[in-house]
């Protein structure tokens, strides 16, 4: 497979969120605001790409029995970098994301890609695969956040787009709407892909 194909497969055809239902904890939690989703997505892309690269680089040196532990530690190191970076340059966003930045460590997408792809492929391919999976994840996040922020606050990226006549739907800000939005998204994509296939 060429790099382009790898990217396409991991970002769209095998999208972690809607195909494999992975990593949805954070997908649900941060999607009440677009800006939070964007930052979270970038953090995940960074972690996915570099941890994939690193794990693939040392894949022959890791004893099989403890490979999960080693992978987790590599992932955790990159998450610490993301966390410190956010704390230093975007303290506001870091505060509103709260523990969810740290929870990138246990985001199953990252572990999933490490197990399924980085453990078997070359470092550069794993890097591309990581970016692809991260971009796919970010797109889903942004899509859900777009709907939730638009209806919940009448704004996009914090800028009011719906006028004063707009009555905010407070359900969109609360937890249940996140579940419903993701379910509807999965529904639409599943029915579409069945027609095509």
């Amino acid at each position, binding site marked *: 497979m060429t790099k382009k194909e790898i990217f396409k497969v991991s970002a769209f055809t095998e999208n972690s969120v809607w195909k494999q239902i992975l990593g949805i904890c954070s997908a649900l939690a941060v999607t009440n605001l677009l800006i939070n989703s964007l930052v979270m997505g970038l953090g995940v892309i960074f972690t996915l790409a570099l941890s994939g690269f690193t794990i693939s680089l040392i894949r022959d040196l890791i004893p099989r029995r403890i490979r999960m532990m080693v992978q987790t530690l590599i992932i955790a190191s990159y998450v610490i970098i993301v966390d410190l970076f956010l704390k230093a340059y975007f303290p506001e966003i870091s505060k509103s994301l709260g523990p969810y930045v740290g929870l990138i460590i246990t985001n199953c997408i990252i572990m999933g890609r490490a197990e399924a792809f980085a453990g078997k492929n070359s470092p550069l391919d794993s890097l591309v695969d990581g970016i692809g999976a991260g971009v796919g994840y970010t797109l889903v996040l942004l899509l859900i956040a777009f709907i939730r922020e638009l209806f919940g606050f009448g704004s996009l990226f914090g800028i009011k787009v719906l006028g004063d006549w707009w009555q905010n739907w407070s359900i969109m800000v609360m*937890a249940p709407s996140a579940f419903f939005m993701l379910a509807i998204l999965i529904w639409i994509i*599943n029915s579409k892909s069945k027609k095509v296939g």
Partner: protein
Amino acid sequence: MELNPLIIFIAAIFTSNILLTNFLGMCSFLSVSKEIESSLGLGMAVTFVMTVTAALNYVVYHYILVPLDIIYLQYIIFIIVIAAFVQLTEMVIERFSPVLYYSLGIFLPLITVNCAILGVSLFMIIRKYTFLQSIAFGAGGGIGWLIAILALAGIRQKVKEKYVPSGLVGAGISLIITGIMALAFIGFSGVVVIQ
């Protein structure tokens, strides 16, 4: 913030359920909730590990990380504590109670990557809980998670025999059920509030 640990315990189960309001532990929640028995097993294992690791991580954070000024390493340290504790529990259970090992053992490795466990430890630090409050929060969070997964497993067994639109089968319908459950749990929000 001087909240009674009992209030935190109740609140963690109902008003700020770790799964239904903080979305933690979704992956194993969706994949294991097909059967009631395995849901119960995983739920109990999660409750146990969550309570103990909340206490362990509290001690590690306040007596090792803070004095040494290496708070930025908290993620790595917490995950090591959790993984080590899970491994230890697995070995102890295997040695002393093979029966329990067969029912719970297979779930233990799943727990290390369950974000609810790490999430509880991180929330406890962010909300500046005391030692007792942390234990109450861990136990309440675990029981809340157990209730949520049992409820979903029960409903899914009923739904299995009913007609579901083909695009929604599996994860889709589970998410909708969870959403309705989250709505129902909002009804508790008048009881106690913690944030």
